[in-house]
Each structure stands twice: as C-alpha cells, then as structure tokens.
C-alpha cells in the first residue's frame, strides 16, 4: 500500500461519507436535555475547519450520546464519526482509554502499533501519523469530545 492509500483507508473513506453522529445539535435549541451535558467547539486555524461536539449523559443509565456537526476534510469528518461510535459503544471510560491510545498513535510518526481492541475503527488512522500536517485534522473532534465530556461531568457533579 502506498502512503496515500494507507492514509485514506477504505474504513476512513466510508466513515467520511456515512458520518455517524453527525446530526442536529441540542445546544441552544431549547429541547430538553440531560443536566449532564457538555458542548465544545474546536477550530483548526490553518484551514478554518471547525466542529462542535456535544456529549449528553443519561443520569439514569449513564449512557452517553454524542452529537456533532462541522465541516472539514475527510480525515476530520471520518475521525468524528469513528469517535462517536467508540464513545457510544464503550461509554466515557472506554472513550478515555481510546482517546489516550489515539493520541499516542497520532504522535507516533508512523511507527505506532494500533491496538484494535481499544481503538476499533480508529486503528485505521495509523497512516495519518505519517502526515504531520494531518494529525490536527484527526485529533480535532477528539479534543472536542474530551472537553465536552469534562463539562458534562462537571455539570452533573460527577468528580470521577
């Protein structure tokens, strides 16, 4: 596989098209929402790409719902889609573990080994780490969800 094909793995191209979690945001709509709610807006200043990610935790079940909207390149959109899947499947703790692993992978300069058990589809982003200019694209939504989750936890009085 060429570097370019490694960068744009089919999984990534698919997620960039079928964007999981890309749906209307709750923020400012007045729609009822859980008190454990956080929203984070992140911008990539080099290209003007932006994303808003919302985290909503159901106070009863602890289930996490992620909503996001934004515009950006296929790497950033696919990354947001993959992250939504992971976060909703594995909850805040699973996301925290994946986030740490993803961060390490992105800064591995192409040398990192992706742990598919922790990262799921996000393992396909391994090729991105060879392209320093694109790492920010991949990390943008992760930073946003991390921030949104911190707000949701704080709002819910959950200091875990």
């Amino acid at each position, binding site marked *: 596989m060429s570097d370019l094909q490694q960068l744009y793995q089919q999984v990534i191209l698919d997620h960039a098209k079928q964007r999981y979690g890309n749906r209307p945001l709750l923020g400012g709509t007045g729609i009822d929402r859980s008190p454990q709610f956080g929203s984070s807006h992140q911008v990539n200043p080099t*290209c003007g790409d932006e994303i808003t990610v919302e985290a909503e935790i159901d106070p009863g079940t602890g289930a996490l719902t992620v909503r996001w909207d934004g515009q950006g390149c*296929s790497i950033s959109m696919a990354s947001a889609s993959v992250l939504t899947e992971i976060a909703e499947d594995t909850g805040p703790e699973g996301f925290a573990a994946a986030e740490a692993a993803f961060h390490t992978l992105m800064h591995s300069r192409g040398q990192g080994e992706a742990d598919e058990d922790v990262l799921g589809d996000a393992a396909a982003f391994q090729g991105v780490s060879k392209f320093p200019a*694109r790492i920010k694209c991949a990390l943008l939504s992760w930073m946003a969800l991390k921030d949104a989750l911190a707000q949701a936890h704080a709002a819910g009085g959950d200091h875990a």
Partner: protein
Amino acid sequence: MLSAAEVQRIRNDFPILAREVGGSPLVYLDSGATAQKPQCVIDAELDFYAHRNSAVHRGAHSLAVEATDAFESGRTAVADFVGAGIREIVWTKNATEALNVVALGLAHAAAGLGGPEAQRYRIGPGDSIVVTEMEHHANLIPWQQLARLTGARLRHLPLTDDGHLELGDLEEIVDTTTKVLAFTHASNVLGTINPVERLVARAREVGALTVLDACQSVPHLPVDLAALDVDFAAFSGHKMLGPTGIGVLYGRAELLDTLPPVLTGGSMITTVDMESAEFMPAPQRFEAGTQPVAQVAGLGAAVGYLSETGMADVAAHEAEIAGILVEGIDRVPGVRRIGPDASAARIASVAFDVEGVHAHDVGQVLDDAGIAVRVGHHCAQPLHRRYGLTATTRASASVYTTAEDCERFLTALAGVRPFFGVS
C-alpha cells in the same frame, strides 16, 4: 515573452526545482505563498556572511563600511525596482509588519504622538477606514485594530460574483469621512488585479491616505509605485524570489518623515535624554534595532535577477500560465473556480473548490504526485465566506512555472474526485 528555452534556463537557476517529492519531480505551484530562490540569492546571503558580515551604520572599521554598502545598495536596488526614492524604502520583517507599522503609526498619531506634523494623520470617531472584502488578513486585521483603538468605523468594498471589486457604491463607501483606503493590488486568492488608478483617484478626492498591499503584484508585474501615486505600499521579499525575514514598507517621503514610528530603540534616534528622544528622518526612523542585513543583500540579488529577466517578460509569461491554469481547471468536471476569467487582468493565482472533496484532501492527493499547492483559506476568510466556502485549493505560479507543470497538475486534479469515489 520568455521562450520555453529561456524558462528552462531560468529553472536551472533554482536548485530546489531539481528535487523530487515522493519519487516524482517537484511541481511547485505554491509561489503565491512563498517563491523559490535562485542560486544568486542564496549566494548573496552566503557571500555576505562569508566575507562582509558586520554591523551597519555603526562603527568605522572596514567591514562595517562594506556591510553598510551592501545594506544600502540593497535599498537602492529595491527602490529602483518599484519606482521609489531610496528614502522611501523602509525595511521590515515582512509585508505584515509593514502594514502594521502604518496602521499603528496612525494610531500613535491619534494618541497625540509625533507632534504637530503628525496631526494630519489624526483619525477618530466619525472617521472611516475602508478596506476590501478580498484582503489578506494582513491588510485587514491591522485596520480592525486601528478602528478599535481610535473609534473610527471600518467599512469595505464588496466583491462581485466573478471576483472583482464591486465599485458601484465606491463614492458612497469612500466618502468625506474616509481617512484611509487600504486595498490589495492583486488578490492572492482570486488573482484579480484591482483598478488602482480609479481607487486612488477617489481617495484623493476625499483626502484619504491610500495603502497598497503590493505583495502579489511586485513579484509578478512591472510596478511603479510613484506612477500609481499611492501613499504607502507593502511587499515581502520571500514572495519575489528573495529571502524570508525581509519586507518593505514604501511611503511617500514627506509622509514617512512625519508618521510616528511604532518600533523604537537603537539606530533610529538623533538625541536621547532620560525623558525623551528625537527621531531620525525616514527611512532610519522606522528601522529600530539591528537589521536583517544578509536578507537585504539577498533581496538585492533577487530584484537584480528579476530586472535582468525583465518584468514585462515575467508578466507576459505568467499571464500565459494563468490562461493555461484557468482554462484547464474550468475543464475539470466537478471543479468550481473562483475569480476572474483568463481574459481579465489577473495574476497566475487560481483558487478552486472540488465538489465533494475537501481542499485538504485535494492537496494530499496532489502532493502524492509531487505537486505542491496551497490549501485552506489562504489568510482570506472573509473572501471565502463571500463565496460560500471555508477552504479552497490554490495553484499559483512564478517565473519558473512551465506549461508542463500545469499539465501535470491538471492531470492529477482530474484524478481527485475518482480517487475519493465522488462523481
């Protein structure tokens, strides 16, 4: 016009053009961001450090004299190149700094600095500053800051759908309250060359100062700043085959002598006591601190190179390249170009949107074929917003760009949407 053989000879002067990227010969179509350097520019910096390095305008030893010579002959070369007097050329770090020196100089005057001579620059509530919707952030944000600092109102000339300034309301927007009209000579995104004469005429009618962003004109067209009759102009060395770290502020001599300096300190004063200081006349009053002398030597070599090539020939060559790029891009399915047609007055800077593929992804696929283009907002977010976009891909040329570069770029561009499976 430069023949193909002449362009080839020119290319041989640029060592970087011989390199490969990812196994393909480099196609460099990002000269609008920064131009490549001919060997003579690289040599001029090297030669300065190897043989003449010393502080300028200080000290009486032989090296200091030679270094000062190199520094001042660079100024003469640049002044001649743009139709200015040597006292009208101020060194800055880049065009951004030059534009800030003007905007903040006016703010200093508004705050009362500069004595009675600087009163003419006073700007405040009730006054207006006019820019255009196509400005690079470097010629927008300093004016936003000036408006904030002084209470003046910031207005702008809007854009037409085809990438020209909409001048229908020029008389209404540039009115008797206007103290500054700041605009770019050529757009770094759209490629449009603006009607300087008409804009300057209107500014003169209402007594506004004119500030020309010449970043994208001086490297590509014959420019005579005195003939254009602008009050101030700014451009960057690195975009005109010269080094980074050196830029130029041009100002009409009588204006530079009275505009309050923003950077103060050593080398710009006549007498200093513990309370106050007297400033030197221009250009020294704007050149505080140790200057980028080697970079000036390099820029001197760059304008020498451009003059020898002939700016009329450079412009004609780049007009041909602009035509190939514009017409070629317009033929690629699913690509929407912004900016004027090939028949308009334009430079070879061509921006476009590939439907369904983000500019970052376009740039990545082109890079895989060894083709360097710029992606993003090109420091012109309001311009992009005007066309409903956040980012575009831009191909931009210089004197060394060939028709073959364009063909390789156009072929790769045609492959972008198929690569991502959009149609």
